[in-house]
């Protein structure tokens, strides 16, 4: 029974990882920007939503209604002002930019909100603590299911958008070769900017769920970053569906590891990640699309 519960909780946890990884996957897998500021952007979004809930008294999910557009605009502007220019500097320059951005956001939040911890869980009410009790040992939390459902919707929607729509095609074209994309009429920088906007908005979503699930303060951003990166890589760069699976594999690995012994929880996730990378099958299955240069 414990094992069944571990798997279920792992899948739910995977939803959170996937959601967290979504924006990263978009930027890292598709646009090839390793965004070190992703976690901090998520926390920024959480703070924004927190401020909205405090000042207006609405619940965190309602607060998303104004917050998401704000973050979309922020992402757009971020790209137009900073990222676009640093993309021209070579493949590693965006890394430096996002590193700078990460510490700027983190410490600006620290200045603005002081080091107190915050949570959105209280304001979310029952959703944060309620659950469906399946048996004495197994329960499905409202929140976990909501996160998972959101992850499926967001990642699935973006995956469809990328693969099936003309805008998605333009985005992938821009990622492969931005200069040439402009030569076939794609407004590359605005495509990138829109993609960044989406990434920032999904980060906000993830940040809010994180805030409902636990607590956050200005320095919480980086803590989940590695799990998100792992999810992206396990799932294969460039595939958002893959990221969803990657998140779940990681989540289940962690909960099963914890069932064996709590200290193996995170370690188990890392080991599964390394095993996937090490196995020739895993690598070719997941990595060929982007990284292998055909002979």
């Amino acid at each position: 029974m414990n094992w069944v519960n571990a798997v279920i909780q792992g899948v739910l946890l995977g939803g959170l990882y996937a959601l967290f990884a979504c924006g990263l996957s978009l930027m890292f897998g598709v646009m090839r920007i390793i965004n070190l500021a992703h976690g901090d952007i998520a926390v920024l979004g959480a703070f924004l939503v927190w401020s909205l809930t405090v000042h207006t008294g609405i619940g965190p999910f309602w607060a998303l209604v104004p917050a998401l557009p704000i973050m979309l605009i922020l992402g757009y502007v971020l790209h137009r002002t900073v990222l676009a220019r640093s993309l021209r500097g070579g493949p590693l320059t965006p890394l430096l930019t996002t590193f700078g951005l990460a510490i700027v956001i983190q410490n600006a939040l620290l200045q603005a909100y002081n080091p107190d911890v915050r949570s959105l869980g209280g304001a979310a009410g029952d959703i944060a603590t309620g659950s469906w009790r399946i048996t004495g040992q197994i329960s499905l939390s409202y929140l976990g299911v909501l996160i998972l459902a959101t992850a499926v919707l967001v990642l699935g929607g973006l995956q469809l958008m990328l693969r099936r729509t003309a805008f998605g095609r333009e985005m992938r074209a821009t990622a492969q070769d931005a200069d040439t994309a402009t030569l076939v009429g794609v407004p590359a920088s605005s495509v990138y900017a829109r993609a960044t906007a989406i990434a920032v908005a999904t980060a906000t979503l993830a940040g809010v769920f994180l805030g409902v699930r636990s607590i956050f303060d200005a320095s919480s951003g980086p803590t989940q970053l590695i799990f998100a990166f792992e999810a992206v890589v396990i799932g294969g760069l460039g595939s958002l569906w893959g990221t969803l699976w990657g998140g779940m594999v990681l989540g289940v690995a962690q909960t099963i590891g914890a069932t064996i012994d709590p200290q193996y929880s995170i370690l188990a996730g890392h080991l599964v990640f390394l095993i996937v990378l090490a196995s020739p099958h895993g690598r070719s299955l997941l990595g060929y699309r982007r990284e292998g240069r055909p002979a």
Partner: protein
Amino acid sequence: MTLLRVENVEARHGLLQAVRGVTFGVTEGEILALIGANGAGKTTLLRTVAGAHPLSGGLISYDGSYLTGVPAHRRVRRGIAYVPEGRRLFPEFTVEENLLVAGRRARSGRWNLTTVLEAFPALQPLRGRLASRLSGGQQQATAIARALMTNPRLLLIDEVSLGLSPKAVEEVYACMTVLRESGTTVILVEQDLGRALSTAGRVICLLEGRIALDAKTEGLTRDEVVTAYFGFHQARPA
């Protein structure tokens, strides 16, 4: 009617001036061959017109207005298409996706996926293949087809026949004739002098970034061209 006018255009790569004060005009429906030795500045000139390379002096006007400050993707929408040197296909796209991405914001016109594939029958069986897996000549054909998808009024082609088999060259030039008939203006860079002279109505020869020759192809002798090429008279090599 003059479709494109290039006035005193200068372009540089860092300290190196690749195009120096080039002036010429192209009338609608004309085919212009741009020739010149290695490093003469042909590619740079075309890229400047397409908006892929910054202008460091002079003006370019197209269809009655200046292009200064117009980004490359807008120029495409106004009808300037460029087939880059080295093809530059999107390697992770299939042939079809390569074509479609160019067609998305295209002007309307006769070219669409169907008509383009008809013009390049060799591409038909390759539709679903990744561009990175194409042979050199297949890539070249795709690159030209991709440019057509934007329904250009002015088509700039760098190194037209590079890598194409003789038969494929035939097809491409046949297509060029079709284009002219439909009123499309073409500027092509071509090293095969014979081809260039027989297809184009006019030829411009660049020498170290300057125009060394600008003439109608009718009545032009090979010797005149070769002289322009090297800046001095040189016997045709055996």
